[in-house]
């Protein structure tokens, strides 16, 4: 259903009254980011459905409140997929939420991120204006790329109404290998694979095991079988493993202590290796659990030119690393340009955005 009119009215009223709005859909990702300083809600759940799907043109235009599962089923019906493998944090997870948070799954280092697959958006800005940026063609350099700016902005620059996303053919087959490796050796092995023209499509390390997934035509995978060490995962088991990793359903993610997400340059040697951790994306993302202080984790990550996000945890007053000047001031100005009265998800990303 298209409820643009109703949503626009709500944003315009909120702008007039200078009353902040908490943008929501399935609320499966409310653990992420800061609590929004708003009493009123803008509910996107009813704003759902596929607007336009052209398999031969490799794009889909979808309303933001559309459930991710529903979208994926539609695409799978045409043997296509969102190649960035969006994580699904629950049945009610929506495509708008995924794009707003900028979440991508295991294929990200090899197939690109959510932002790489976004072609265009329709949004309501903080004045309640209905705006379109980008489009649904693959190449479009007219004007500033305000569509990709929305990815990861967590609704603070605009309410996502519609998204045009690139879709790609589903790979014919996957093949996952498991190798016994210590963390440092696994990082080396990952670098070796990433430098080769092979169809590596996912990688992970946990509990002394390195997981490598290759995707492509049967003939390609057959050729690879002889060159990769390790045990071959049964196809069903492998599919389940990557889905559980993507959706954070593995036991590692269930425990109660704060969950940290470290973004590091690939090839970074083990960090805080005394703490339990899971590596993804060729080692450039490391999930960390344990009792180390936030200061310690931030300092260790920063010293390796990385960033630490407190992804899940109880006291999420500052989950994201502070922005240095002059970037911080620039962020404020970009926010003011898009949402001058700070009514869209204020405080979710940073206190002043």
């Amino acid at each position, binding site marked *: 259903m298209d409820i643009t009119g109703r949503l626009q009215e709500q944003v315009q009223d909120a702008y007039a009254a200078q009353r902040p709005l908490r943008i929501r859909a399935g609320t499966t990702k409310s653990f992420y980011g800061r609590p929004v300083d708003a009493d009123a809600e803008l509910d996107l759940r009813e704003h759902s459905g596929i607007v336009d799907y*052209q*398999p*031969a*043109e*490799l794009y889909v235009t979808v309303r933001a409140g559309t459930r991710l599962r529903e979208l994926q089923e539609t695409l799978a019906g045409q*043997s296509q997929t969102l190649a960035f493998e969006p994580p699904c944090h629950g049945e009610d997870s929506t495509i708008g939420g995924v794009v707003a948070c*900028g979440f991508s799954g295991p294929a990200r280092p090899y197939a690109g991120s959510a*932002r*790489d697959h976004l072609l265009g958006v329709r949004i309501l*800005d903080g004045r309640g*204006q*209905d*705006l*379109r940026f980008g*489009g*649904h*063609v*693959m*190449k*479009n*350099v*007219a*004007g*500033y*790329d*305000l569509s*990709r*700016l929305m990815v*990861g*902005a967590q609704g603070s620059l605009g309410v996502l109404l519609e998204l045009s996303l690139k879709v790609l*053919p589903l790979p014919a087959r996957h093949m996952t290998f498991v190798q016994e490796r210590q963390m440092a050796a696994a990082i080396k092995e990952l670098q070796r694979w990433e*430098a080769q*023209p*092979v169809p590596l499509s996912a990688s992970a390390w946990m509990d002394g095991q390195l997981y490598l997934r290759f995707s*492509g*035509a049967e*003939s*390609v995978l*057959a*050729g690879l079988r002889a060159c990769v060490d390790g045990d071959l995962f049964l196809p069903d088991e492998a599919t389940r493993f990557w889905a559980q990793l993507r959706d954070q359903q593995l036991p590692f993610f269930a425990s109660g202590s704060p969950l940290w997400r470290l*973004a*590091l340059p*690939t*090839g970074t040697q083990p960090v805080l290796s005394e703490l339990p951790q899971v590596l993804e*994306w060729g080692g450039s993302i490391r999930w960390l659990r344990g009792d180390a202080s936030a200061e310690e984790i931030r300092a260790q990550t920063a010293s390796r*030119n990385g*960033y630490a*996000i407190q992804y899940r945890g109880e006291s999420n007053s500052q989950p994201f*690393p502070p*922005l240095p000047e*002059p*970037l911080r001031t*620039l*962020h404020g*100005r*970009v926010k003011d*340009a*898009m949402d001058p009265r700070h009514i869209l998800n204020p405080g979710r*990303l*940073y206190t002043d955005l």
Partner: protein
Amino acid sequence: MEESTHTPAEQDFLRALAAALPAERVRSGRESLQPYECDGLSVLRELPLCVVLPQDREEVQTLLRLCRQYQIPVVPRGAGTGLSGGARPVAGAVLLSLARMNRILDIDLENRTARVQPGVRNLAISQAVRPFGFYYAPDPSSQIACSIGGNVAENSGGVHCLKYGLTVHNVLALEVLTADGEVLHLGGLTPEVPGYDLLALFIGSEGLLGIVVEVTVRLLPVPENTVVLLAAFAELGLAADAVSAIIAAGIIPAGLEMMDRLAIQAAEDFVHAGYPRDAAAILLCELDGSAEELVERVALVEEILRRQGADSIRVARDPDTRALLWKGRKAAFPAVGRMAPDYYCMDGTIPRGRLAEVLERIARWSEEIGLAVANVFHAGDGNLHPLILYDANAAGQIAAAESFGQRILALCVEVGGSITGEHGVGVEKLDSMCVQFSAAELETMHRIKGAFDPEGRLNPGKAVPTLHRCAELGAMHVHGGVLPFPELERF
């Protein structure tokens, strides 16, 4: 120096500049400015106040601070190969050439990245890393000359972006100077950075948001094998439909290019690539991957091409034959250039499924207007490059070519595409921007510009038209592909 033509403020600025930078960094006086009077869009010329060629970031900073102090605008320029006038000088503004900042600073094979200065040529990056088995994917046809800084400004594409993406997909980090000379670091070597994706916003911003002083690009391993197929068709429409059929079959070629009869003949006369001169259209399809994979995919593409009515198919597997087949395509623009005194290269994108229909309409208009059009373009991603042939010395032909071009761009928007796929807006397409975007959308872009460059000193008058200009033009915004009053004859 011809200081007499300068305002007192400009004279003060030039004196301060001469004191702040070594003499060989600054050029002024008509004769030394003339080589810079235009970029690749040579019909639009203007002399800048002066040309500055800094050698490092500090010199750019010095310049920008002086420009702030004296309120002098700045037009950045890479290699000057852009086709939309983005680097055309502005009267009274400094032309900031980054061509001398052309060093490759670091190649990090472990992380598969290269850190380079903005004046490094696109092809030079691939050449530097080729011995290690890597390359930089975006390959605009001007890659031998164009600079990576200019690629960032334009979000350049090329033949291989169908599979490997545009500049925005292949640049990891930028070091940028703001209009005030402050250093900004956008993006990074990590898969994500805190805050907004300002890197994505900056790429393709045509020099309006900041000056790029360092670029970190992603390197890809060179594919194991490459095969190029050349298919000839007796009708343009058949070739166009074959493009969609290949993509619809789930194949993403590394490149998928199309040339029409005029372009084929021009290229044949020029470089003798062995193209079938009697074909109405040819497709060049490049596939890459492992040897096993290619056997299957080449067979599949051949089958599709036959089914779509290809008269002949050639398959080039060895490097020499592949290079020969590409040679005609790569030489197509200059080849077409030999057929008429002047040509106007357009750039718009459309959904692939509308290719046949749009090409047909362009052909019909070409006949009506009396200006020939050659088509040679990135068919796989629907990126048209109609080349309108004209004679600048014949009365009215420049204007006729320009209005024909705008008509084509409006048609691109009408069928759901864009007024530019890779050449940018510059000054050339300011009017067409009024067709693609609403007043509120353009106003939002001006606000973003204001967030980065509140005083509007960087590349003024480019990329985003004023609302006043659109109002005067009376251009119609085509909303979501639907023109107001579709029953009326336009143009």
